[in-house]
Every structure is written in C-alpha cells, then in structure tokens.
C-alpha cells in the first residue's frame, strides 16, 4: 500500500520534469507495483532458488531442499554423460562431497549446499544424464534432502547475488 503511494509520487515528479516520458514511466511503475515480485510473500520466497559459490542451487519445497547445478555450471562442464549419486539416507554436512558428474572425460565433484539427509535421488539421470544440461533447474535436479539447519539458507546467494557473482567470474 505504502509502495503504491510512493510510486504515484514518483510518477507525479516525472510528469513535472519530462512531460513526454511521464506516460511511459508511469505505466512502467504501475506494472511493477502490480507484479508478484514486489509483493514478497513468504510462499514466493520459499520457492526461490538459492545458490552456492560452487554453482549448486537449492530450492525449498515442503520443507525439503531440491538440489541441482546452475546453468553456468552445466555450460562449464560440457555434456554430462554420467552422474554418480549418493545413497538415499546418506547424511551430508554442508560442503560435503556427495557425488560426481562426468563430462568430456572429466569427473567433477558435487558439494552439498546444506546439512541434511538425502531423501531422494533423481533416478532419471541414470538413463538420461543429459537432463543436467538440458533442464538444469527442473528435470535435471540431482538430489533432495532434509534441511537440518535452515539458517544455512541465509548464507547462500539469492538469484540477484548469484547473477552478479557469475558476472564477476567472466
């Protein structure tokens, strides 16, 4: 509510200084205030991806963390031909190695973004390891795990911070 009022003030200022542009800016501002992103409810936040500096992502869904690797990571790896995954029930500390992906004759480790227990592994990857490349944020998910220490999520990067991090690497 307060945000809408603030935005109206802004658009009013624009109309004083830049009569031609005011229409456009006002429309843009109003679109922004209506979009789900600015509403910031907790349900929206919990579905958001968090990232590690090792390019793994974790998404919380129903108290369980789904883990995969980012687009940047899958591009840097090349075509994945094999996924070495942990056992269901395996307990992982944050940053523990939990598996490996093989591509172009290179085996690269996967590191746990959180502390918890593996509840599910993506068995699709046995037959179709390329899912990690083709659909790294959805069908190419790697493991699901419990979240023993939710505060660890706060230490991970959100989308914006991760995008900035990736830019700094290039």
């Amino acid at each position, binding site marked *: 509510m307060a945000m809408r009022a603030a935005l109206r003030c802004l658009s009013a200022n624009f109309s004083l200084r830049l009569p031609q542009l005011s229409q456009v800016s006002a429309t843009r501002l109003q679109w922004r205030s209506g979009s789900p992103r600015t509403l910031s409810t907790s349900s929206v936040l919990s579905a958001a991806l968090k990232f590690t500096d*090792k390019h793994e992502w974790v998404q919380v869904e129903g108290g369980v963390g789904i883990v995969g690797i980012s687009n940047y990571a899958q*591009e*840097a*790896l*090349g075509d994945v*031909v*094999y996924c*070495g995954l942990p056992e269901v029930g395996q307990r992982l500390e944050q940053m523990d*190695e939990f598996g*490996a992906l*093989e*591509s*172009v*004759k*290179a*085996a*690269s*480790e996967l*590191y746990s973004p959180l502390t918890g227990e593996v509840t599910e592994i993506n068995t699709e990857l046995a037959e179709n390891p390329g899912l990690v490349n083709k659909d790294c944020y959805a069908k190419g998910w790697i493991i699901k795990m419990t979240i023993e220490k939710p505060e660890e999520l706060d230490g991970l990067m959100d989308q914006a911070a991760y995008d900035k991090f990736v830019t700094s*690497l290039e």
Partner: protein
Amino acid sequence: MRGGQPLVEVVRLGLVSYQEALRLQQVYVNRHRSGPAHALLLCEHPPVYTTGIRHKPYPEPLLDQLRLLGADVARANRGGLITFHGPGQLVCYPVLNLCSFKKSVRWYVDQLEQTVIALCSRFAIRATTSPHTGVWVGDNKICAIGIHCGRYITSHGLALNCCTDLSWFDHIVPCGIEGKGVTSLSAELRRHASVEEVVPHLLHAFTQQFNCQLTEAAQDGGESLTPVTSAGTSALTNLKDN
C-alpha cells in the same frame, strides 16, 4: 610472476607405480590449500589397466583376466572408461588450480587436447579431436585423456603413446569406444620415438597452450627455467633430416 603468467612446477617422477602416482598427486592437490601451487607431474607406469568413476562395466572377473596378462589393475576417480598405461607411454598429470586459468572443465580438457595436437604437429603428425575426448590420428587414438576436478583443482590427465607396446590395448575396448584403434608416435613416424625425446616438446606445447611458465622442482632455490628451446630445435632438425 612475470607478465601475470601462472607458474607451473615440472615434477619428473620417472617410472612409478600407478598407486604411487595417485598418492603423489594427492600431495600436490593438497598443496593448493595454501595458495596456487600448480604442478605438472611427468611419469611412466609399469603395465596397468585403469578404470574411472564409471566402473560398473568392468566387473572383477574381467579385471582378473587382465591381471593374468601380467598387468596391475586400478580404479581411479577420473572421468573416462578403461585404458592402459605402460612403459613407452608418457603420462602427464597437471595438478592445476583452474582459478588461475579458466574455471571450466570443458575448457581445460580442450586445452589438453590442443596441447597434444600442437605437440604432434611438431613431429609433422596431423592429429585431431573427435566427438570422443582424446587425440586421434585418423581412427586411431594416440593420446587418452581422463581427468578429475574438485574445487577447481585438477588431477589425472593425459597418456600419450610414444613407443608403447600397443598390443596391451588388444585386450580391452580402449575408452569403451568400439571400432577404433590406437597408435603411437613411433607407429606414426615409423621410427622409435622415446618418452625422453617427447617430453621437451610436450612442455613447450603446454606453456604455449596454457600461457604459463614452467619451473623445475627446486634444486637451487626454484630457479625459473625456460625449457626446450634448444633441445626442441635440435630434435626437430634431426626429424627433418630423416
């Protein structure tokens, strides 16, 4: 560091068992914990067949058959399928921190392939890449590549056939690729090319491809060494005369 080029220490291990080389690689991997400490391990192995993280295609009975041939058998945490290492094959294990180069495994493997292709061209051999990782002369693989990368630190590496007894490869499907063969520098050149002769060329190609500087393991305070230039030229002159 002159010109911002990473410094890589060349470590010549000579003939060492595969297990010993694994142990030494781990030592060099661990060195990276206290800052960049790139190393290039060079060695030859007594006959050994090795498998990578995809080891399920190779059950124990099959591996026992290979042991009966007089070879060792070992499992490694590298990528790639089954391969053979033996005398006459130059094995090179770069233990690099990719943070000082480029943080991409795909790029790193490409660079290794290009290094070997450049080396082959110094011997007037036309080598290429293919959809299968490694370096090929036509349908025959002259150099196998299989690496591991953890926290941007690389291990394992490449195996270039100089004067390897290629019959060892008859007992496996090398790297799991059916219908292709193997070759060596000696086979392609139709003359004996020893590991000793090839090493300087590999080092030169490596510095060019990775844009780095090499230093020999410190005998006199780790003095920087520019290897190969004179040795490489004279070897090439010999080749031209052949």
